[in-house]
């Protein structure tokens, strides 16, 4: 019942947020309340700016959102007014055909000004989203909410910054763990040597602290590959998100990423659910019949809320961490004085250190809760 009420509470929060999306900071958890305050105030600054001064005025909200969100190219730094960036391929599925071009074709424009024409279709990059202009339109037009009106979004499976970093992380993971596996083959008595000495405690941690206690001695083995993969996949991408030189590709702070992983957990939970699990959802044993009828819809919602909470938790924690650091850095530009820099840097350093811990904690929580859901789904009846 505790889990259930927690889930309902969380669901209410989610609904709440879905309807009041304008202030992103609200997503942050308790510890990150600071960011909420700052971000809201920055949004205030941004909207008060007069439109003609917009180019010169520093807009922290725009800067932060730009850094937190995905992008088509890998922008590294500016040099003499030119952007130095690693172009990445853009893949679009339009009218049954695949259209590909490099992100450099947009010339670092993300205001919808540069038009790229391919196969008779014209595309613009507006706020790091590719829009396909309508056939008669020559330039992107906006309504009063600054939303494009004469363009549509094509099916976009581009290799974005996040996808690129995800593949880098995959290569690192494959290298790390295949090397580890080879170390065991080399030693005759399965003694962990070299890198295996570092990796084995982590792997055993997932097995002995997550898999075995959450799922149970007899059934945990089936879920170990998933738990291990998800733990290290999330962890390494959390870490990659903190490395400034790769421009903070914020993969694990992207809702699409957490959504996909939570969906995997949901699918596995649903498919490993045994009779006992479904009975507890649709016909709760040990309570009177009216209560059973009352509980069934709540439990069904709870079934969905569990993965949704996984999705939101990881996304919110990682994104909020990035937002705080960026917000602290923005202070320097907002107050237009270098005197703020020491404070900003000190606070940002403090938060960054916390974030390093958070990378592991969030990977752990995601894995532990996934394991807990698998354990609940496979739990045998005991009376």
């Amino acid at each position, binding site marked *: 019942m505790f889990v259930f009420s927690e889930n309902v509470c969380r669901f209410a929060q989610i609904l709440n947020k879905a309807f009041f999306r304008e202030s992103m900071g609200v997503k942050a958890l308790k510890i990150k309340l600071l960011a909420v305050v700052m971000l809201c105030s920055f949004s205030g600054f941004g909207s008060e700016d007069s439109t003609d001064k917009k180019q010169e005025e520093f807009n922290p909200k725009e800067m932060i959102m730009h850094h937190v969100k995905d992008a088509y190219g890998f922008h590294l730094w500016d040099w003499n007014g030119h952007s130095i960036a690693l172009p990445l391929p853009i893949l679009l599925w339009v009218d049954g055909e695949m259209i590909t071009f490099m992100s450099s074709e947009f010339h670092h424009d993300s205001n919808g000004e540069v038009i790229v024409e391919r196969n008779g279709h014209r595309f613009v990059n507006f706020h790091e989203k590719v829009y396909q202009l309508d056939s008669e339109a020559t330039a992107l037009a906006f309504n009063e909410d600054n939303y494009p009106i004469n363009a549509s979004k094509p099916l*976009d499976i581009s290799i974005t910054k*996040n996808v690129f970093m995800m593949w880098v992380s995959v290569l690192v993971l494959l290298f790390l763990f295949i090397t580890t596996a080879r170390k065991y083959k080399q030693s005759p008595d399965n003694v962990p040597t070299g890198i295996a000495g570092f990796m084995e405690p982590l792997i055993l941690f997932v097995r002995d602290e997550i898999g075995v206690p959450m799922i149970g001695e007899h059934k945990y083995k089936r879920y170990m590959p998933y738990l291990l993969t998800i733990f290290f996949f999330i962890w390494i991408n959390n870490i990659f998100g903190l490395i400034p030189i790769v421009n903070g590709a914020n993969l694990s702070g992207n809702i699409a990423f957490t959504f996909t992983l939570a969906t995997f957990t949901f699918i596995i939970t649903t498919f490993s659910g045994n009779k006992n699990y479904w009975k507890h959802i649709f016909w709760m044993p040990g309570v009177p019949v009216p209560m059973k009828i009352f509980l069934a819809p709540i439990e069904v919602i709870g079934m969905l809320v569990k993965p949704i909470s996984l999705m939101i938790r990881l996304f919110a924690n990682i994104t909020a961490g990035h937002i705080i650091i960026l917000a602290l850095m923005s202070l320097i530009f907002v107050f237009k004085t270098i005197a703020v820099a020491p404070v900003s840097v000190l606070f940002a350093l403090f938060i960054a250190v916390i974030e390093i811990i958070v990378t592991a904690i969030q990977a752990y929580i995601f894995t532990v809760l996934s394991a807990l859901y698998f354990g609940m789904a496979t739990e045998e009846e005991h009376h």
Partner: protein
Amino acid sequence: MDLVTPGFGLVFWTGLTFIFLLLILKKFAWKPILGAVSEREESIKNALKSAEEARAEMQNLQSDNERILKEARAERDLLLKEAREMKANVIDSAKTEAQTQAASIIRQAQATIESEKQAAVADFKNQVAQLSIEIAEKVVKSELSEKDKQFKMVKSLLQDVTLK
């Protein structure tokens, strides 16, 4: 706004990448690593178990040894006791044997001595008789050398004999 809207492209690539990562790592990393670890744990468990068994066996052996030693000691004591008893018996029986033997020897000797003595006495008696006869013969011879003496003699002898 679109910060909380999952983009299709990233969902697609994340799903695809994750499935491939899961499959590859499962085959080439997790299975061999977890297999090696559990194999090693198993072997450690077995080694500990066999060490425990060896220790128990050693203890058994030790107690066995002690028991055997004790038994041997008891047996030795028994043997010694028996030997001592036997010795005493042997000595005893030898003693009695010797005594009886000695007694019988003595008895025989005494008997022999007795018979010898008797024989000697008899012999002595015979010889004494012989001698006495010879002496008597000689005395008689000398006595009867004269006629009147012979007569006297015959007369006295005849006097002793009563006619029937």
